[in-house]
């Protein structure tokens, strides 16, 4: 299996009038094709910075972010669907941006939306959809350009607890079925345990990787994992690591 993303001693400093902030310090980790990797860290430790670096929106102060040239899809905390576009037009947005808005690509995107239960909503505006459905539409939008790696920035944190569990299950299923590599960033320990193959733990700012865990669960579905006996064990380990 090849590496699709690697951070080599990456440091990131922010400059402002008030001074210099070190967001990341010597961060090392890698993501292999087909893996679901979660990175957890305390709030405000520079998680979003890390994703922006991975997506190439920022360049590191020191070190290197290495990718294998594959494309990235970014999914944010809120769905950020454009309220003036129908769901269908929202899903076509990345195609328009990349100027690949061809009938075949549109058809592929629509097929994807239909496969995951958005068929009846395609001509609707986002305001008529539930929070869970909207986040699903946001995922289909991300997938419409067929990215190789998905970057998920706490994609469930804006939802209420019930919806969150089911949308998490949902998104996990879609990502697995479409055989995507995913990098999830979150501060929610149980969310990370319920989806990830591998977890990296970040320290407080300036963030460094302080631990790496490979998780093996007999079940793969997030909700099933939460019921597993191993779950609480992992939770305790990660909780301690986050609070040291």
């Amino acid at each position: 299996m090849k590496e699709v993303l690697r951070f080599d001693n990456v440091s990131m400093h922010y400059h402002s009038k008030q001074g210099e902030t070190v967001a990341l310090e010597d961060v090392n980790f890698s993501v292999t094709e087909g893996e679901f990797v979660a990175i957890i860290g305390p709030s405000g430790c520079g998680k979003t910075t890390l994703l922006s670096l991975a997506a190439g929106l920022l360049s590191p102060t020191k070190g290197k972010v290495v990718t294998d040239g594959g494309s990235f899809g970014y999914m944010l905390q809120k769905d950020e669907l454009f309220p003036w576009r129908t769901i269908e037009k929202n899903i076509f947005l990345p195609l328009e941006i990349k100027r690949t808005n061809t009938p075949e690509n549109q058809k592929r995107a629509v097929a994807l939306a239909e496969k995951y239960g958005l068929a009846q909503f395609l001509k609707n505006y986002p305001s008529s959809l539930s929070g869970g459905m909207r986040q699903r539409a946001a995922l289909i939008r991300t997938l419409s350009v067929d990215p190789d790696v998905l970057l998920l920035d706490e994609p469930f944190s804006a939802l209420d607890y019930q919806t969150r569990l089911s949308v998490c299950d949902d998104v996990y299923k879609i990502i697995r079925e479409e055989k995507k590599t995913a990098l999830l960033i979150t501060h929610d320990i149980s969310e990370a345990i319920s989806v990830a193959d591998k977890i990296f733990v970040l320290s407080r700012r300036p963030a460094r990787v302080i631990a790496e865990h490979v998780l093996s669960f007999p079940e793969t579905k997030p909700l099933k994992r939460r019921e597993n006996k191993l779950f609480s064990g992992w939770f305790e380990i990660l909780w301690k690591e986050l609070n040291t």
Partner: protein
Amino acid sequence: MKNEKNYSREHLLYLRGLKKKNIWINVARVAILLCLLGIWELSAQLAWVNPFITSSPSRIFKTIGELYTGGTLFYHVGTTLWETLAGFFIAVALGYGIALLLWWSECFRRISEPYLVVLNALPKIALGPLIIIWCGTGSTAIVFMTILIGLIVAILNMLNGFMATDENKLLLMKSMGATKWQILTKLVIPSSLPNFISMLKINVGMAWIGSIMGEYIVSKAGIGYLIVYGGQVFKLDLVMSAVFILCILAAVMYSAVALLERLVIKNRK
């Protein structure tokens, strides 16, 4: 009400109550207008007040009739309407364009900020004499005044709208690899549409202020001219009539914008 049959009795009562209340409010609005006009007319007829100073609805009606038969009504209305609309559209278009430029370049934005602030605070009427000398005493001067009054407001309102674009949506666009032009056309302009509408509403008012004020300073025709002229020769019927016409025109123009708003903003929340 497609599913009216399925509603419970309580809900139907509730709906009926809402309807009743709406009707009542409309009746009250009309009644107040009729009452005021009635009292005004009556007090003039019975000479409780001097109708030479206060005018009266019937005298206003008569004056407008005279203007109409004299053939000058539409000339004056047309002149003011033309000046107002020309000033309105030029100010809106120019303001929108300049706001776009300011959004595009942070440098340009920061450089122009103190100028915009001062120009916004400056009472534009102070430039009256200059405008007369620069543009002459015709309609051009009045249109120029109207543009001056609306322009800065249009720029500031639109710029606010552009700058208020949601940070996360910007991040989303950037993560998709959008160019600045794509961000502008696919995100910033559509998301600022409500600001555009409210800017239009504000500028309807500004345009009328501009054209009437312009006509106060310098004019040979128009509604503002009628008001000033009527005041100078103590024909208060004429002043009142002109104000009455102005009320109607401003209301019509405002409802046109409100209609546009209803057409454009349907699916937003």
